[in-house]
């Protein structure tokens, strides 16, 4: 029990961030028209590509002789980049088509 309480106190900043972000996330897309559901999903998909930062840290920390970490880190950075770059480009392509007729 003590351990749990300690954990909450030591991580309170993160816990606050999480809770506030949940509300922000819900608030900002509440009024989205159904036309934009697909681009919005695609844009959100690109944003969760931030996970690549974790991959970069893993990769950058890996020791030169730890081939497993190097290989897995390399794949992780590669996949993360695909997620980020592909996600933003696809979203832009979808939205480009909306723009022409605005």
């Amino acid at each position, binding site marked *: 029990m003590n351990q749990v309480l300690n954990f909450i106190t030591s991580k309170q900043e993160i816990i606050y961030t999480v809770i506030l972000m949940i509300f922000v996330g819900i608030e*900002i897309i509440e*009024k989205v028209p159904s036309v934009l559901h697909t681009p919005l999903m695609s844009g959100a*998909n690109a944003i969760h590509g931030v996970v690549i930062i974790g991959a970069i840290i893993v990769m950058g*920390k890996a020791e030169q002789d730890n081939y497993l970490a190097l290989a897995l880190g390399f794949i992780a950075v590669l996949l993360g980049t695909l997620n980020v770059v592909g996600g*933003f480009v696809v979203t832009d392509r979808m939205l480009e088509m909306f723009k022409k007729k605005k």
Partner: protein
Amino acid sequence: MNQHLLTICYLIGSITFILGLKMLSNPASARKGNLLAAGGMSIAIFGTIFLFSYDENGTTHYLGNYIWIFAALIIGAIVGTLAAKKVQMTAMPEMVSLFNGMGGACAALISIVEFNHLSKELDATPPAEIIQKIQEVQPTVLIIVLGLIIGSVSFAGSMIAWGKLNGKVKDFSFTGQNILNMVVLAAALGLAVYMIFNPQQHMLLYAILGLSLFYGIFFVMPIGGADMPVVISLLNSFTGVAAACGGFLYDNKVMLTGGILVGAAGTLLTILMCKAMNRSLKNVLIGSFGGNKKGVAGVAGAQGEHKEISLSDAAMVMSYANKVLIVPGYGLAVAQAQHTCHELEKILTEKGVEVKYAIHPVAGRMPGHMNVLLAEADVSYDILMEMEQANDEFPTTDVVLILGANDVVNPAAKSDPASPIYGMPILDVEQAKTVIVNKRSMKPGYAGIENDLFFRPKTSMLFGDAKKVLQDLCTEIKNA
């Protein structure tokens, strides 16, 4: 100094994500929002590469292995851009699913590497201090395992969703599948809990990975293709949470905010999509649309005879109409017929016919799919009508031309409580004087149910590939 710069980079990243997502929910600012978020992402990525430092054994280290990092970044960027640029508009949904899977896999890999790192530390700890050490690392193990489970479910699920949308994977379900899924998930979670208390058992991590992948596959398998957008949106929010786990792990604010933001917004978006179909999320996930219920509705609907119309008759009816409403569906997308459709619209307009489009919110494979497709073909924004608007117009319409849409015009949604799509709002095409349906065959739509509309006296069928039929219609009308 570098530390502070990095903090500012991350702050900029978080703010652009929030603003970007906000702007993405408004048609006028959407494109700028996307670019803004992309800019923030670049700042956060390059900030991490050059400014990130960590303390180990009392000294400050910067990240190494630049060659590897940049090699991966460059390859990923080139492949990602090419894939995203080359993909057909119709294949957008599966592309999103694929990229989502990549993010999930990335999160799972991070967990694996971090866990290996941690288990080395544990192995090096002298037995006297091991209990103390285990207590210390418990929260970290929790986050790592959570990231692994969510990331790999998202990866496996997205791959199946991708395969389903491009037709490589068929629907597959068996009795008791839901129970098996629950058992597998419970086993994965049970092992995860055991692992938190016994982090020295390295190999368990791979068992959890296997179970999670298995769960991801069999969780998406039975869900019908028509519901894939909802599933992708849900998996999208999963990956967001997996990314947030990484943020927890490294105490990294931009990963945390970005991940949670997508997790929350994605969940809401999933619910909004379900609402557009007037179904609950639970119904989508467990109901396995069109699977086991097919028999019941199929028998009730397979009655009467349908009537066919010839091309020249259809052309005639349309060119002498006052008002024509076009109802596009997935068939239009598959046939890549959006440009030909616009062509037909122009020819009819020149003849003095009023032409408009009636767009059901879930027509096609994703909400907004049809709008994107028609926008690509240069169809003007102001003749695209949303469902409510269109339903007001049908009574004054002479001809409704349905192009490869099925479930969104199925009257069973209004009249037959036994139908799996009962309660879904539909386009009330029967209010119009004549209905012409273009389909490839009499096969039921994605929901796997018969459509009574096709047997109604007002309805005539015009079989064939949408593009071919539209081209022929154009020629016929021009020559008439």
